[in-house]
């Protein structure tokens, strides 16, 4: 029965005035305002006015060394990559205005998928509009009601969102803990479908997963395995195929998820697989179907970049040199780091708290160095981190400069 008829159109006194759906964000608004009230430069509102190279830009009016991008292999200004993009823009126009399954698949999308199949030596490749959508789409589509997803607690947001979008039972385990993972797999009903989701490199601390052991355990319990290699592509493994290649388990994993927005140097995401029925994903995976495909220039730059990365062994070697030198240098200066040894191109410097972290970030940016400030809830164990991600194009001299800027800032802020 409706009571509407005896109520006035408007309540006479408004309860909870000023409250609306945005009230739930009040705490985070207050936290941010508190931080900026101290005169702190906003770490989450940086504008690059001009990009000079993969490693240099003008940020907030200052020439800055970039040590917080995911441009690991420095492909963004590669002349062949740029030329391919310009040609595609001229030949195919600025965008596809359609879904991959309708009018949005051009020659360039197929060529990009061919490049991925060659890069990974796998039978199937599917290109998504972003890496986020690749995880969201594949995970939510293959693991449904009654299935189980076993995943590392430090997984990327796109993995969690993929789990939430499907209806599978979600079972997390402690970060990189092989025994905790096995215990959970063992307890799942034998007949249930199982998907284990892992990452090659965990992007917050820059540590890698013990994939050799973990993939073996997953297979022992009949689980399919999906590995996100977003932060390792082009760099880790003999052919740059990722931690799965370095660990010698690439043939045992069912799906590799990756992105074009890191080493490849543009935007987009993908999944490669040898599963014989993989192509059906193109029809049933909603984040693939119900969005526009990547612009022709983007897939052309991606395809060219991927093919060049196959021959990037010299760059890979130089990037490892950079990573080792920066890690060792920061450690010698007395900074606390996320890993004992360098395991990837990411080196995380652990800050005592958000306030000190923000102050350190500001001292670095004023000294001409951009790093990534990462804070909870994106970080494990509620840590505040300054994340440094190296590029193969950082010169030896630049790494030296980076260490000098860190030393000065660390002393000014009183962290070392």
């Amino acid at each position, binding site marked *: 029965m409706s009571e509407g008829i005896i109520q006035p159109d408007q309540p006479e006194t408004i309860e909870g005035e000023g409250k609306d759906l945005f009230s739930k964000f009040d705490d985070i608004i207050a936290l941010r305002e508190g931080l900026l009230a101290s005169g702190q430069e906003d770490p989450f509102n940086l504008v690059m006015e001009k990009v000079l190279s993969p490693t240099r830009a003008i940020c907030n009016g200052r020439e800055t060394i970039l040590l917080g991008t995911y441009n690991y292999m420095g492909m963004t200004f590669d002349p062949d990559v740029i030329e391919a993009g310009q040609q595609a823009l001229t030949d195919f126009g600025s965008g596809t205005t359609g879904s991959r399954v309708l009018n949005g698949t051009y020659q360039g999308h197929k060529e990009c998928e061919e490049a991925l199949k060659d890069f990974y030596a796998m039978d199937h490749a599917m290109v998504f509009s972003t890496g986020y959508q690749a995880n969201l789409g594949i995970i939510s589509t293959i693991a449904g009601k009654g299935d189980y997803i076993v995943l590392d607690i430090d997984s990327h947001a796109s993995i969690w969102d993929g789990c939430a979008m499907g209806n599978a039972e979600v079972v997390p385990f402690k970060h990189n803990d092989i025994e905790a993972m096995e215990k959970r797999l063992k307890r*799942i009903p034998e007949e249930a479908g199982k998907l284990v989701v892992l990452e090659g490199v965990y992007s917050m601390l820059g540590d890698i997963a013990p994939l050799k052991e973990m993939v073996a355990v997953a297979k022992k319990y009949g689980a399919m395995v999906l590995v996100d290699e977003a932060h390792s592509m082009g760099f880790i493994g003999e052919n740059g195929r990722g931690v799965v290649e370095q660990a010698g388990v690439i043939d045992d994993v069912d799906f590799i998820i990756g992105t074009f927005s890191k080493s490849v140097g543009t935007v987009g995401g993908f999944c490669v697989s040898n599963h014989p029925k993989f192509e059906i994903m193109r029809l049933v995976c909603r984040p693939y179907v119900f969005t526009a495909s990547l612009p022709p220039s983007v897939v052309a730059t991606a395809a060219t970049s991927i093919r060049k990365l196959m021959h990037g062994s010299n760059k890979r070697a130089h990037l490892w040199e950079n990573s080792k030198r920066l890690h060792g240098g920061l450690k010698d200066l007395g900074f606390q780091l996320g890993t004992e040894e360098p395991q990837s191109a990411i080196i995380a410097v652990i800050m005592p708290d958000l306030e000190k972290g923000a102050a350190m970030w500001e001292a670095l940016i004023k000294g001409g160095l951009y790093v990534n400030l990462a804070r909870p809830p994106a970080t494990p164990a*509620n840590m505040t981190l300054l994340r440094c991600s190296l590029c193969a194009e950082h010169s030896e001299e630049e790494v030296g400069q980076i260490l000098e800027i860190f030393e000065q800032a660390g002393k000014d802020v009183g962290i070392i």
Partner: protein
Amino acid sequence: MDRAEVDARIRELAAPFNKKGVTITEDTTFANDLEFDSLTVMDFVAEIEDEFDIIISMNQQAEIENYGQLVDAVTKLQAD
């Protein structure tokens, strides 16, 4: 194992996580009364899972807000 036994065991497991020494009743909530953050929840759940050899999926955890609900859920899961 009956509900009282499950309750007693979970109480033991909860003690080290109950940093403020809050008196735990059936209605005590994990988020507000015990102030468990997501990491504490993960560690606490892992201890219970290992103790009873069960899985409490994230989906099931979402339904559990207070202590009484947890004891009910574990009593049911370990009997299955």
